[in-house]
């Protein structure tokens, strides 16, 4: 059963094509990695999936429903969670309040009903010590964890992770990967854009390669990494 299906998605900004006939599907509980050179249209693809940018043509189906023209807020309510490449916490709210807002509004329930779950997420993501600190004062790793925690608080069925491991040290990266694996193990489908390939490949079941808005490969990580096009375009290796 597919949780997300993209069918011939196109998007241009003026003369620049950022999505060129993109079609792929993600099954329920699957983890898909997306790689591609800078400017390949990876983050734009996320914006198209979450609805922050409208598609020019093509269709997006989420959990069996056509959401091509559905606003971002409604897509969130139907189970789409997302983190940003540059963390965007609500800086003047505490860490716990950040989750409370996301939890209460993202699942249309009262704060009292979601408070326990928010606390659990803070434990899982290693932020519980910072629960009552203003989000604006967090370090980069903590901000990235908060992005993840806040996305989880909306109880997503599909989690979109945008370069969440970038800029972290080796140890920080390892513990973040462990957290993501645990989330994935609970049956949450994940689409993860990442440049840190070893982190990505230790979680995802399939890899998708994007280049100038085009899908140039999708399949098992080892096959993709071995393919000639990918090695040439993305890894820059002469073959």
């Amino acid at each position, binding site marked *: 059963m597919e949780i997300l299906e993209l069918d011939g998605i196109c998007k241009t900004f003026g003369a620049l094509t950022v999505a060129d006939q993109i079609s792929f599907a993600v099954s329920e509980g699957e983890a898909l990695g997306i790689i591609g050179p800078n400017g390949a249209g990876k983050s734009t693809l996320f914006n198209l999936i*979450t609805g*922050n940018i409208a598609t020019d043509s093509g269709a997006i189906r989420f959990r069996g429903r056509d959401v091509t023209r559905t*606003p*971002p*807020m409604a897509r*969130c*309510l139907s189970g789409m969670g*997302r983190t*940003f490449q540059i963390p*965007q916490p*609500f*800086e*003047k*709210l505490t860490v716990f*309040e*950040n989750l*409370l*807002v*996301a939890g*209460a*509004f*993202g*699942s*249309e329930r*009262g*704060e009292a009903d979601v408070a326990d779950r928010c606390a659990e997420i803070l434990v899982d993501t290693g932020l519980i010590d910072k629960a009552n600190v203003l989000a604006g004062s967090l370090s980069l790793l903590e901000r990235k964890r908060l992005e993840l925690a*806040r996305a989880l608080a*909306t109880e997503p069925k599909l989690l979109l992770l945008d370069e969440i491991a970038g800029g972290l040290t080796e140890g920080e990266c390892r513990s973040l990967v462990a957290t993501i694996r645990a989330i994935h193990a609970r049956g949450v489908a994940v689409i993860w854009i990442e440049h840190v390939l070893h982190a990505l490949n230790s979680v995802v079941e399939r890899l998708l390669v994007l280049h100038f808005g085009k899908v140039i490969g999708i399949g098992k990580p080892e096959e993709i990494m071995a393919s000639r096009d990918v090695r040439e375009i993305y890894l820059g290796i002469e073959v």
Partner: protein
Amino acid sequence: MNWLDTILQGVLLGGLYALFAAGLSLVFGIMRLVNLAHGDLIVLAAFLILVLVTALGLNPFLAALVAAPLMFAIGWGLQYFLLNRTLGKDILPPLLVTFGLSIVIQNGLLEGFSADSRRVVAGSLESASVNLGPVTAGVMPLMTFFSAVAVIVGLNQMIYRTSVGRAFRATSDDPVTAGLMGIRPQRIFALATGLAMVVVTIAALYLGTRANFDPTSGPSRLIYAFEAVIIGGLGSLWGTLAGGIILGLAQTVGAAINPEWQILSGHLAFLAVLLFKPRGLFPRAVD
């Protein structure tokens, strides 16, 4: 001249200015919208109370209770259907639209109620006073002041203690991200303006019962509200109360020295604060 009395009157007048300013402060804090029609909306609410009092023979307080939900609806609709469309990176459209709205309200009121100056009659309460040892204070000014404190305590509780308040702060921080968390920023903004109009109704009740007003009274109320917000520091509701009190004190002290100096000394106090503390006395917002 009794200085203690002058200071008390000044502080109590400050309560009225804080009421003028609280709604403006709330709306600016949440959506960075400067509502130039704020003063005219206060006057509109005052006329609404006046109509309810004269046509239905209601007590002014009861009339304000009836007017409050009506004003909430007006504020909600105004924000949802008109002002939300003006919000964006450019700060000019909301200024122009609310300036236009100010002119529309003034002329609409002029058409409906003529240029005569009006007053809401509050009966024996108007002249009632309480003896506080060396000074006496009018019951109405005291009620104005305590209403202002109650409004500010209430708004602060709501903003920092409730789910809606957290949504207000989250949306104020980043409306796009808030949308991704399932918050509907347009509705949050509409709710905020609706609430601001409830505060405006309370301000209008005391404006109407304590002084004369006419359709063109709005802009000067807007100026007082602005000055109170700026003196107190953007983003702080307690600062707004302090700003109102400083403005009220400056005006009564000025008037005590020479009656012609009342308005001028208020503006001078405002300028002095701008000169020495350009971000206000209790700035909270970092941006």
